[in-house]
């Protein structure tokens, strides 16, 4: 569904994204994983053309989206959406929840019917009366649910989840991951899941690409890579992940 070829982006002299290529199949959860500064977030922004790449191709269902003008791009935006990391700044503090979620409909001039909003709220697990509330009245996890609802209201085919659980507590994190799994199967979505937490990636993704300093160092099926990493950086990363089992702890003598 999505094919990225030789994508690059420089910020000044730093190669944020350095000639990367990968493919995402329809219906899979593909994860871009790496530490801060590796370029995964920038890649997400490039795919949505919130940033312009220096070179490379991005093919969405065979069409090179980099060659499209802004107005043609706008029509395509219906098909790919993004959920952001920080629930505290990704929602307009002066808009009500209901308006935030429905805004994409207004931008595209679509009338989806009165049943859409309640249905969406149910899918992401928010009570109906939240429609009139403001973001500051909601918890972090609830705000993330609003962000998810906003991203799927246009029925996109492709979703980018940019570090969506990174600032959440472990229990809320698990709930949001469940919501993601639920909407994925309901709407037959393809998801690009950007994260730095390998354990989270391990519980969700089908295929994984490990990034370091703007390059993809290893890419493939998650189970294979995690059980048998071939690149030294991947090994280093996997070794560093803390294991929630004191018996297996590597620090105790």
């Amino acid at each position, binding site marked *: 569904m999505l094919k990225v070829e030789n994508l690059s982006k420089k910020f000044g002299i730093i190669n944020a994204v350095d000639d990367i290529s990968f493919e995402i199949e329809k219906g899979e959860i593909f994860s871009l994983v790496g*530490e*801060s500064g590796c370029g995964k977030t920038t890649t997400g922004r490039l795919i949505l053309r919130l940033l312009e790449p220096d070179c490379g191709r991005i093919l969405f269902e065979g069409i090179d989206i980099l060659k499209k003008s802004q107005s043609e791009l706008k029509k395509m935006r219906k098909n790919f959406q993004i959920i952001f990391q920080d629930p505290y700044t990704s929602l307009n503090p002066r808009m009500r929840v209901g308006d935030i979620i429905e805004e994409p409909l207004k931008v595209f001039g679509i009338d989806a019917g009165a049943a859409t909003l309640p249905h969406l709220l149910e899918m992401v697990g928010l009570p109906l009366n939240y429609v009139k509330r403001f973001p500051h009245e909601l918890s*972090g996890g609830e705000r993330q649910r609003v962000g998810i609802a906003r991203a799927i209201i246009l029925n996109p085919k492709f979703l980018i989840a940019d570090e969506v659980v990174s600032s959440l*507590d*472990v*229990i*809320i*994190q*698990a709930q949001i*991951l469940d919501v993601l799994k639920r909407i994925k199967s309901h709407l037959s979505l393809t998801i690009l899941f950007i994260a*730095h*937490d*390998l*354990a*989270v990636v*391990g*519980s969700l993704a089908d295929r994984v690409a490990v990034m370091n300093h703007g390059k993809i160092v290893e890419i493939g099926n998650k*189970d294979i890579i*995690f*059980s048998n990493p071939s690149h030294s950086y991947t090994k*280093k*990363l*996997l*070794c*560093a*992940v*803390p*294991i*929630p*089992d*004191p*018996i297996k*702890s*590597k*620090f*105790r*003598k």
Partner: protein
Amino acid sequence: MLQIKNLRVEYESDNKIITAVDGINLTIEEKQIVGLVGGSGCGKSTVALSILNLIEKPGRIAGGQILWDGKDLLKMGSDEIRKVRGSQISMIFQDPFSSLNPVFTVGDQISETIRYHEGLGKRSALLRAQELLSDVMIDNPALRLKQYPHELSGGMLQRVMIAMAIACGPKLLIADEPTTSLDVTVQSEILQLMIDLKNNLGLGILFITHNLASVAEICDLVAVMKDGRIVEQSDVFKIFEKPASDYTKELLKAVPKLKC
């Protein structure tokens, strides 16, 4: 060594009184790493700030005792407690970058605390600072002394914070989410550093976090907090193998496991 008895902390908000910490009991011995785990808002950071009497309005300590070698820290005057802070009990925070003053070099900031507590002159304090930087395994300590905070990475800054914290040989280190904002490889190094400090310096550590996996890696005892109360407290092996409280079970279930 440190005994928290029945601590209660309240704060006022919109004419209502909210109890942030509701009667908790916790003990930390020498050479022991105690983990305080819970979701955000459960009160764990409040507990940490109470130990050194750092709670500010609209919060206030409403009851309980915090005994340090027998003396109640909550009853100490401001001069007395200032002598405890940094030299007997130290604290490090989540974001090292905002805990350091951007206009002073790293060396100056570490030596400041040494000079305050131990009265050393500038030269000797700087030398001591350099020794500390190598104790915390920073590469090239002599160079780092002259650098400014913005020139160092998050992991290095956290090491600097730890160096400042152990500068005067405290017996207890309070670490409030020290690894939460760090990359996983750096996190692993800081966790290793904390265990080394415990083993080599006999340091007691109160490790506050919401990450259960790090707790499993380095803690000896674990206390689980929810809504201001400790719902379960026991040694680390028992908590993970046979959790008694429902909340602990819920937490453990939610932790994502790396399937290897």
